[in-house]
């Protein structure tokens, strides 16, 4: 499917794009970007995987990003059958207790990647089977990859 077809397909699932925060963009990126609100994330993801036309069965990258104001997660999806790619972005303004839905039940690889994001950005994924620190020790304070993280002893700034 081309990007336009993908966009139309996804739009057809959400008659009210405003309510689900659906925004498409192809600027400044080589993929079609879809932004979605956290509440519809799981729904969109399961549709993207389940639908035969889209069939995104390969989550090849899951990135946590600190957008400054918001904390977000970027999902890079690819279909091994149709070989089309899509980027799904979701972000939450809550920096204190950010919570997103897990996609580890859709793609098993997300289990580890979400733990990594939890470790470095502090985003909690609901219904994740094993939501605990992966790299850092359990008593580590703060989330190192956030932009406002400060550690004067271990971080060398230039």
């Amino acid at each position, binding site marked *: 499917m081309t990007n336009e077809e993908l966009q139309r397909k996804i739009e057809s699932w959400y008659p009210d794009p405003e309510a689900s925060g659906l925004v498409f963009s192809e600027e*400044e990126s080589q*993929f079609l970007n879809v932004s979605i609100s956290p509440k519809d994330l799981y729904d969109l993801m399961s549709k993207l995987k389940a639908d035969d036309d889209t069939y995104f*069965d390969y989550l090849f990258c899951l*990135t946590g990003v600190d957008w400054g104001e918001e904390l977000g997660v970027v999902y*890079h999806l690819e279909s*091994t059958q149709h070989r089309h790619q899509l*980027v799904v972005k979701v972000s939450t303004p809550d920096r204190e207790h950010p919570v997103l839905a897990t996609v580890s039940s859709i793609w098993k*690889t997300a289990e*580890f990647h979400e733990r990594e994001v939890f470790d470095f950005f502090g985003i909690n994924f609901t219904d994740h089977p094993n939501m605990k620190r992966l*790299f850092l020790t359990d008593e580590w304070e703060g989330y190192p990859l956030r932009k406002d993280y400060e550690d004067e002893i271990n971080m060398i700034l230039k």
Partner: protein
Amino acid sequence: METTTVKSNFKSEEYFINMGPQHPATHGVLRLVLTIDGEIIKKVDPDLGYIHRSIEKMCERDSYQQIVHLTDRMDYLSSNINNEAVCLAVENALELEVPDRVKVIRTIIGELTRISSHCLWWGVMGMDVGALTTYFYGFRDREMINDIMEETCGARLTMNYNVPGGLMFDIHPNFVPRVKKFITHFKTKIPEFDRLLTNNVIFQKRTRGVGILSKEDAISFGASGPVGRASGYSCDVRKYHPYSALDRVTFNEALQTEGDTFARYKVRIQEFWESLSIIEQLIDNIPEGEHRVATKAVIKLPKGEYFQKVETARGELGVYVISTGTKNPYRFKFRSPGFSNLSLLNHIAVGGKIGDLVATMATLDLVIPDIDR
């Protein structure tokens, strides 16, 4: 009544055992918390972070030229391919067309790196299943590649040979003859590998039917590289998203369907041949020209997001750059193949014995700094 007392006397329970962080089979500081019932593995829980250096955070502070050398320290066995990934991402973002010569040399060196990585893997694989001698035979051939690299790049492991815009310096005049010599040498050695290890009845018994990964699970777990291809999942980035000079060579994607440890082993042995054939197609046709396009001293990527995939010896390495137009990236993410491949270890090792876990881990070919970026 009496039978029950006998039964309670033989009560068995599961217990935990720490495999690593210092353990010969984990090839680095990986810690696996195993739940074991006798010899049978019930659960594998990886505990990471023993050598995490937070390269992604360091990238946010470094310039794009400096980031390249950090990738050497991720998957150090395919450091050249990692370098190439970052350089390609930067060049794509700058819309910089590198000369043909650079593309061909990058591809040749990438394939040499793959062979050398697989040589090491082969030696270590043999060692993990108990045949200690393979290690030295693998290293003998790897040593030749290391010498080639050292003569051209100056370093044996962390080359940092690629720079955004091309190569740091041109290839050494001895490069081509040495590579040709290596090809003829190595072609006689792969059959020897087969005779020593592949066909060995003990080795086959140890690996066949062990650690089976189905195609669906391989995709779902994000397996890539030889691990995915052994399950029949065609996932070679060199085929689907060719980069550098890979679009002008013909090669077969090494595919197996069984998905067990032996299939992963076979895929890598097959990749020896494919990589040799790629090098052979290119080595005589290195175009003349510049080895580098001048870039600005301070590289600023235009605002936007860039993603570049390459196929390292371990699988698909993704480089995801978010730039805000400054000289440092806003976010630099490495999608490392080892991390995804590790996540499926629990899935395929459960139910096997300790020996199976070691053999399975050997074919996942984990490089811990790649996981612990």
